[in-house]
């Protein structure tokens, strides 16, 4: 049967973007009052709500570390997030995997030794799914952590890139992701020093092409960094206005 044309010879993708374009990003910090920090983040039709609690006293004694804070990430997918409803159990391996990736990405960026014997909880809720779950989760969590006032070395910005018809392609949506032939690489960086916090890919990509795809993803991360920065500034000026009033 006819395979869907993911990248037309005119250089446009199924949704009308060019290969090097991100989806539209909308984000806001401080959306929940009860949490210490929170953020709502959407990238195209993928929408995530994050709540951060902490640093606080660990509920359980087990994971306590005496010299630094422990980070706990829980990832939850709303049953209405995809067009076909599917109930997922809490122990779903895919969910645990995403949570663990997010934790790894932040363990290096959060100044954990500032908060010994405490715990930082990040609750991720995927409200709507259209590809790029991991990248949206990381970006949203960055915003929420900053909102919570947790000391960090830098933002953590993530972006995906793939490789379609010999062309590196930025920020895959669900249609592009679901094609078996498309490799899907997620990169998270600390934008100021360019260090890589996370690099994840499950499909096969020839090593010759890896560099091009990664460069593109890093470009995307830098763009996202500017967007997140704007959101932080907006939240800060909002707060400042409230204080001055």
């Amino acid at each position: 049967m006819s395979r869907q044309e993911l990248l037309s010879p005119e250089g446009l993708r199924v949704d009308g973007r060019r290969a090097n374009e991100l989806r539209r990003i909308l984000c806001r910090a401080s959306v929940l009052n009860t949490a210490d920090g929170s953020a709502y983040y959407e990238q195209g039709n993928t929408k995530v709500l994050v709540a951060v609690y902490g640093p606080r006293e660990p509920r359980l004694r087990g994971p306590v570390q005496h010299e630094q804070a422990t980070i706990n990430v829980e990832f939850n997918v709303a049953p209405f997030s995809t067009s076909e409803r599917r109930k997922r159990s809490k122990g779903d391996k895919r969910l645990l995997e995403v949570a663990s990736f997010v934790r790894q990405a932040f363990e290096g960026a959060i100044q954990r030794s500032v908060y010994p014997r405490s715990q930082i909880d990040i609750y991720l809720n995927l409200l709507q799914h259209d590809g790029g779950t991991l990248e949206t989760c990381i970006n949203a969590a960055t915003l929420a952590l900053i909102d919570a006032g947790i000391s960090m070395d830098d933002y953590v910005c993530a972006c995906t890139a793939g490789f379609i018809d010999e062309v590196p392609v930025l920020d895959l949506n669900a249609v592009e992701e679901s094609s078996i032939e498309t490799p899907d690489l997620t990169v998270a960086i600390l934008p100021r020093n360019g260090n890589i916090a996370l690099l994840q890919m499950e499909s096969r990509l020839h090593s010759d092409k890896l560099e091009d795809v990664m460069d593109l993803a890093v470009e995307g991360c830098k763009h996202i960094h500017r967007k997140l920065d704007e959101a932080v500034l907006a939240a800060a000026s909002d707060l400042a206005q409230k204080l001055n009033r």
Partner: protein
Amino acid sequence: MLRNKSFVKRTRKGNIVRTVKEHYLRDDITCGFEECSHKVCADARRNAEKSGKPTAGDVNPAAPLSASPRSTTKWGLHYLVPDTNAFVNQIDIFERPIINNVIVLSTVMDELRGLSMPVYNRVRAITRDHARRWFVFSNEHHRETFIERSANESPNDRNDRAIRTAVIWLKAHLEPALITPVLVTNDEGNLRKALEDGVDACRMDEYLRVYSEHPELLDMMGSVSITDRNSEDSSWSGYPEYLSTVQVQAGLKANALVQGTLQIAPYNYLEGSISAVFPDGKEHRILVIGRNNMNRAIQGDRVAVQILPKSQWRKAPSAALVDEDEDAVPDVDKKTSEDSPTGRVVGIIRRNWRPYCAFLDPNFVTKGARASNAPTIVSVLAMDRRIPKLKIRTRQADALAGQRFVVAIDSWPKESRYPQGHFVRALGNAGDKATETEVLLLEHDVPFQPFTQNVRADLPSEGADWSLDLERDQIASGKRHDLRALNICSIDPPGCTDIDDALHAFELPNGNFQVGVHIADVTNFVKPGTAMDVEAAYRSTTVYLVDRRIDMLPELLGTNLCSLRSAVDRLAFSCIWELDQDANIVDVVFHKSVIHSKASLTYEEAQNRIDDPTMKDPITKSIRSLNMLAKKLRKRRMDAGALTLSSPEVRFRLENDSQDPVDVEMKALKETNALVEEFMLLANISVARKIYQHFPDSAILRRHPEPPAQNFCNLQHALKPLGIELEVGSSLALAQSLDKAVLPSDPYFNNLLRILTTRCMMQAQYFCSGTHTPEEFRHYGLATDIYTHFTSPIRRYSDVMVHRLLHASIDREAGYGSVLTDKNKMTEQCDMLNHRHRMAQQAGRSSVELYTNLFFKGKTVEEPGYVTQILQNGFGVLIPSYGIEGVVYTTSKDADSSIPPALEYDQAAHELVSPKKDISIALFQRVRVILQVDNKPVSANVSSMRRKLSLRLIEPHVPGISPTDTEQKRIVELVTKHPDKVKNI
């Protein structure tokens, strides 16, 4: 700007869900006009120039539309904007190079993808050719031309409106340049609305009238309804209606219908069959016999078939040949005990129509006088006998008589007895060598166009002056071994220009031998993903015809840079073994190398060197060692059960200037042929093991399945009276019994038996190792457990892929396409290779047939022959001295069916027997036949248009089939009068 596309769709499980997709609208979509002054368009044009994309001539690919397009009095300068149906119906016209400056809307492209992928691909191919100046305007993503579907609007109406909106925008956009977009549509409603909107629009035929200098364009109009009441008889009530798609799907699901690809018998176009899986899980062959049951399905169509009740099942009418006029075929109606299921076509799942080579039906009489330019309806016959007669409308009926041309089928309405089509292009006079060669290339789907500019651009820039560069070719870095000092030579047939392979051998100090096979390093020049690679993959193989060669790779590579000629440095891929005295492999290594061949020998020269004891130079010594080892290898292979098969191969001696055949000779084999073959087999097997070890899922291998024992039934039966037993239990048993099957009275008999045994074999095929179990890898004919093709990368694409796999398995850093590890893509490519390979073989055979006919034109020859095939109404005869085969018909063409045939088919004995039982024709029988090619004018009858060699039986004399005494006398006279024209052995 962002808009969400939201629609409801049904999932595979049957749930109804709502799907939401993003849809970004853009401001930076350009119009494609090369001198557009709008800022967006001008910027994009400049960017494209700067980025240095390959520009063809002076055309900028980002803006190919010319500033001076075709101009007419009605519209002035204009661009064409066809709608979807215009493409679907008239794609043949749009492919003509005179139709340029066309804007294709992305709405149309999307619709085409849904309607017909072949048409979509053809449109895409045109847009890639920058010289045609076609442009795809992405109106669906343009902020100002995107429209939302309104309530109560069907998707079709929405798309029509989108097309009109885009044309309105283009009109305003191009206004300053005084160029008008003209919408081409055959949809009345759309046309009217477009004119109301103030857009220029017209019907396709209206537009084509503008091309008064190309009247044939109007002939190429598809989908013009052709009603020819006179020729349809009144008793004809039309074909049954097809079931709707939903009914067909439901029927298939409920097992009330079965689906399969219709295969028409090569001898009777009213007899088809499909092979389908029944609910019980077994595969059955279902016969579809007769015009009404076939219900407008054509060879290769995927059809849904309803099984008829058991009372209507019949026996498969095995091999009844029909030579002459198609209408005279009586519906076969024989009922016997072994019935096979029959069925009728109730729906078409997918059409498989392609352009067909055809000629005017000579029996078709044009009625009455007519104006020279008025269109008439004529019936045409396809060269492929499996295709029914076609009706086309043409203004050039007179010119087409005696010509070959291409036609395409448009439709087959149920009221029409024959499918309706249109003329595509003329090929030339029938019987003309050039024309007939083109016909056979087209009919065998052989791509034979010259290489495009894009492909040639991938050749090394130095051209023929290419020379070795120690840095670039990685010799300095040690990745490529320098073997220029070795005494390497090549052995090939005389006149060979594409030398794939070269060999060397010498004795090592420990008494073993080092033997090297060096294969042209094609992949060094053909990098994966380049235009040249894509083209080579598409062509898949070089096709050898009698008088020409259709190359897979451009000539510069094939016969020069990759050809391992003597006395020049050439890059190679070497396979080097250490063999002991008994030719056992002690060690094998593979590496890229550079060689300097010391001599290019022919088989004969190499043989002479072996035989001449005075020759003691290193090359000769090397050939002698190779020969010694080859004999041992061969012995071992034979002991393992490798088969020596035979085919009646001939070579034509062509007259130099006209390329007319002047003589026929059999291909002769020498010991040195076997020498080269033996080492090529060894290399192929060693490479197959290596690539399978490194790529267990995606190695390209070649297998030859074991033939089922019943394939040999007829052969074994015919051999019994001769006292010969054919053992078919294993290839070894078969090889041994073939060796024993010798008749002292007839030296040719063994050869004949090998030819017939070959026909019982299965086809060898390429496959991807991940798709079969290792037990199925066996190559039956060569008696080896694994095999591939590595030794001819110049002329086979399979070898190119194997080279890349091998390179990747010896050098981890080697750059190779991601395709190599993709099982699905490899399987796809294997199917392509198998198809092209089969077609190339058939094309080669057809070419020999064509030349045979040319050779016998005007000659009459009496020759001894052997019966090779028994059919219901004829038998096949092989004439060894020419290596040709023909059919002697036992039913005369002008005899009506009431006269009993001169020979009856006896099924039990698989023989043809005369009514008095005094004469019988059986397999292997020796007969004498007269060969001639009808030399009548081309339009005389159908068989002369499909020019065939005709055979007439002389001995044994069968009344009714053999020529009568008077006829014989005439032939004898001919023989004595023109001894120069007759060759009698």
